[in-house]
C-alpha cells in the first residue's frame, strides 16, 4: 500500500512545483530534509494518530487533486473594507504583504519573508518548526513561497496593536504554503491580532508561523479564523520562549470546511509562561481540530490552557492537548481545561488531554467536559419569562465570554463578540 499512500503526496508535490516551486528563502538542506520526510511519510490520513479525526490525505485527494486555479490580487478598497481604528492595519493578500495600504509601525520591522535580514533567517527559520516532525511543516518548508517577517527590536514596547488582515482571493482551486517568522526580542512587547476573512475560491492554506520570544518579552497573539466554508487550512504556530517571557495565544474559529491548528509552545528557559485560549463555534459539516503541545523544558515555568467548543449541526470538533514536563522541569505549573457544549445530536466532540510528566515536583491538572446546555440554568431563565431560544443564547454567551474576556485588545474583543453573535444566529 506504500505506493498508494504516496500517490496523493506525489500528485500534490507535482502540482505545487507548477504553481510555486521550491521555497526561495529556505536553505537547500532544509528543503532536502523536508522532501525526504514527505517521501517517507506522505500526507497523513486517519491512520496517523495525530490526524485521526482529520484525514488530510482524503481531503487533498478529493478536493485538491488538480490545482487549476489562480490567485487574484486585491488591492482596492482594502482600507474601506477592513480597518480597525487605533491599530497598525497590515494587509496580507494571499499571503503576500500589501505594502501600499499597510500602516507600518515605525518601531518594528515588517517585510515579506524573502526580504528578511539573512542573519535573522539563519538564526530562527526552521529552528523551531522541524520539517522532520510533521508532514505539513515539511510541505511548508519545501514549498512556501511567501509570508511575513516581523521583528520587534529589544526593548521596544509597541504602543498599538498590529492587526493583520488576511484576505485570500483565488479563482477555482488553489493551494497556498505561507511561512511567517515573528521575532520579539528581549524586553519587547507586542500585541498582534490576525484575522482571516471569508475567502474566495476553494483554497487549501498551509500556513506556518514561527515565533521567538526573547528574555522578558511579552507577546499577545490573537487569531480569528473565519475563512468560510470553502476554505481548508492547516495552521501551524510554533513558539520558542526564552526566560521570563510571556506568550498569550487566543484563537477564535467561526468557519472553515477544515481547520486544523497545530500550536506548539516550547518553554525553553526558566520562568517563562504561556496562556493558550480557544473558542470554537462549529457548524454544518465543519471539521475543526485543535492540537496543542506545551513543552516544559526548564524549571519554574507556567502554562495555562482553556479551550471551549460549541458544536451544532453535524460538525466535528477535536481538542487534543499535550503537555510534556521534561525531567529537568521541576516546579512546573501546568493547567489545561477543555469544555464543550453539544447543541445537536449529530455533532461530534473529541477531547483528549495527554500529559507526560517526567519531573517529580510539579503541579499539573487537566479537565475536560462535554455536555448539553445546563438544564437547571435554562429552566431558571425560562421561569423568569425568557424564551427558550434567547435563554440558550444567553447561556452560550456566558460560556464564550470566559474566553473572549481574555482578549487584551478592546477592539479585537468587540469584533470577536460581534462575530460570535452573528454566528449563533
Amino acid at each position, binding site marked *: 500500500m506504500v505506493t498508494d499512500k504516496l500517490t496523493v503526496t506525489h500528485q500534490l508535490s507535482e502540482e505545487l512545483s507548477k504553481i510555486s516551486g521550491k521555497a526561495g528563502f529556505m536553505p537547500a538542506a532544509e528543503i532536502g530534509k523536508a522532501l525526504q520526510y514527505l517521501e517517507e511519510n506522505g500526507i497523513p490520513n486517519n491512520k496517523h494518530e495525530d490526524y485521526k479525526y482529520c484525514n488530510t490525505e482524503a481531503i487533498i485527494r478529493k478536493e485538491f487533486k488538480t490545482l487549476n486555479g489562480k490567485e487574484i490580487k486585491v488591492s482596492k478598497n482594502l482600507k474601506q473594507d477592513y480597518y480597525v481604528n487605533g491599530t497598525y492595519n497590515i494587509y496580507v493578500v494571499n499571503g503576500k504583504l500589501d505594502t501600499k495600504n499597510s500602516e507600518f509601525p515605525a518601531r518594528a520591522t515588517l517585510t515579506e519573508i524573502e526580504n528578511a535580514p539573512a542573519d535573522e533567517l539563519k538564526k530562527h527559520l526552521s529552528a523551531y518548526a522541524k520539517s522532520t516532525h510533521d508532514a505539513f511543516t515539511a510541505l511548508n518548508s519545501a514549498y512556501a513561497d511567501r509570508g511575513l517577517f516581523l521583528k520587534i527590536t529589544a526593548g521596544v514596547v509597541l504602543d498599538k496593536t498590529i492587526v493583520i488582515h488576511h484576505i485570500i482571493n483565488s479563482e477555482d482551486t488553489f493551494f497556498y504554503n505561507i511561512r511567517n517568522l515573528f521575532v520579539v526580542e528581549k524586553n519587547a512587547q507586542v500585541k498582534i491580532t490576525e484575522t482571516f476573512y471569508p475567502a474566495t475560491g476553494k483554497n487549501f492554506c498551509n500556513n506556518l508561523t514561527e515565533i521567538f520570544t526573547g528574555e522578558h518579552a511579552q507577546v499577545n497573539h490573537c487569531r480569528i479564523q473565519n475563512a468560510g466554508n470553502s476554505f481548508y487550512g492547516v495552521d501551524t504556530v510554533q513558539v520558542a520562549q526564552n526566560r521570563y517571557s510571556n506568550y498569550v495565544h487566543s484563537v477564535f474559529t467561526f468557519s472553515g470546511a477544515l481547520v486544523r491548528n497545530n500550536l506548539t509552545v516550547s518553554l525553553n528557559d526558566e520562568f517563562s509562561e504561556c496562556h493558550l485560549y480557544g473558542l470554537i463555534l462549529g457548524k454544518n459539516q465543519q471539521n475543526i481540530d485543535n492540537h496543542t503541545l506545551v513543552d516544559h523544558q526548564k524549571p519554574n515555568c507556567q502554562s495555562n490552557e482553556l479551550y471551549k467548543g460549541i458544536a451544532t449541526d453535524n460538525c466535528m470538533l477535536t481538542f487534543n492537548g499535550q503537555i510534556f514536563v521534561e525531567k529537568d522541569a521541576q516546579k512546573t505549573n501546568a493547567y489545561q481545561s477543555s469544555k464543550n457544549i453539544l447543541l445537536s445530536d449529530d455533532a461530534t466532540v473529541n477531547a483528549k488531554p495527554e500529559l507526560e510528566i517526567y519531573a517529580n515536583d510539579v503541579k499539573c491538572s487537566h479537565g475536560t467536559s462535554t455536555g448539553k446546555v*445546563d438544564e*437547571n*440554568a435554562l*429552566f*431558571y*431563565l*425560562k*421561569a*423568569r*419569562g*425568557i*424564551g*427558550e431560544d*434567547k*435563554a440558550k443564547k*444567553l*447561556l452560550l*454567551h*456566558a*460560556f464564550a*465570554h*470566559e474566553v473572549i474576556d481574555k482578549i487584551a485588545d478592546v477592539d479585537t474583543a468587540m469584533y470577536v463578540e460581534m462575530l460570535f453573535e452573528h454566528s449563533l444566529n
Partner: protein
Amino acid sequence: MLSVKNLHAEINGKKILNGINLEVKAGEIHAIMGPNGSGKSTLSAVLAGRADYDVTEGKVSFNGKDLLELSPEDRAREGLFLAFQYPVEIPGVSNINFLRTALNEIRAYKGLPNIEAKDFLALVKEKQALVELDGKLANRSVNEGFSGGEKKRNEIFQMAMLNPMLAILDETDSGLDIDALRIVATGVNKLKRKDNATIVITHYQRLLDYIVPDFVHILYQGKIVKSGGKELALELEENGYDEIKKKYDIAHV
C-alpha cells in the same frame, strides 16, 4: 386567580402529588406547610413548569388560562413567579442583563415596547433598596459567589422587578439568619397588593411571624390534609408534624 383541582404528579414513575386542591384569590397570602418529602417543592416545580415532572391527573387554571398547557416562560409572562429554594448560579450572565432581558420578554408578550434604559435603572435602584441588596451584586453574574442570604434576597429583588400576579416562595426562609429573614419578609410584605397573591411554602412557622398568611394548608404525602387560618401554623409549631402524620397514617391504614 389560581385554581388547582385534583392535581396528581409523578417523577420517574414515582407518585409525589396525590390530588391537590387549592384556591387562591387576589389579595390573599397562603402558606403551605408540611414535613420533608411531603411534596411541597414538587408542587411549586409543577406550577412553574419544570419538565422533569409528569402531571398524570388534574387541572390548574391561572387567571382563567390552563396553566399546564403553557411553557415555563409563558407562565412567567402571564404573571407567575417562583422564588427558587436553590437559586441557580449562572456564571457569565450579569444579573442586570438577565433582568433586563426577562423584563423586556414579559413586556413584549404584553405588546409593550422595551423599557427605556433610564427607567430600567431607576427601577433597579428602587427595588434594590427594598431588599437592601448591594448595588455591586446587581452587576455580578447571576447568583455567582452569592451567600445563601444574598441569593434569597436576589430572588425577592427579581420578584420586585418583574412584579408578578402570583408569587410562590419555595422555602425562601431556608438557610437564612434572622436579619436576612426579616429583610426578605419585609420585601415580600411591601410588594403585597390587593390584586396580587402569594403562596409561601415552608417547613417552619418562623417565616410566618413576618409574613402573616390568610390561610394555612398542611401538605402530607402529596395531599392537603388540613386547612385553616394562621392559628394552624402556631398549632403546628407547638405539636410538630407528628400528630398530623399519626392521624393521617392511621386514617389510611
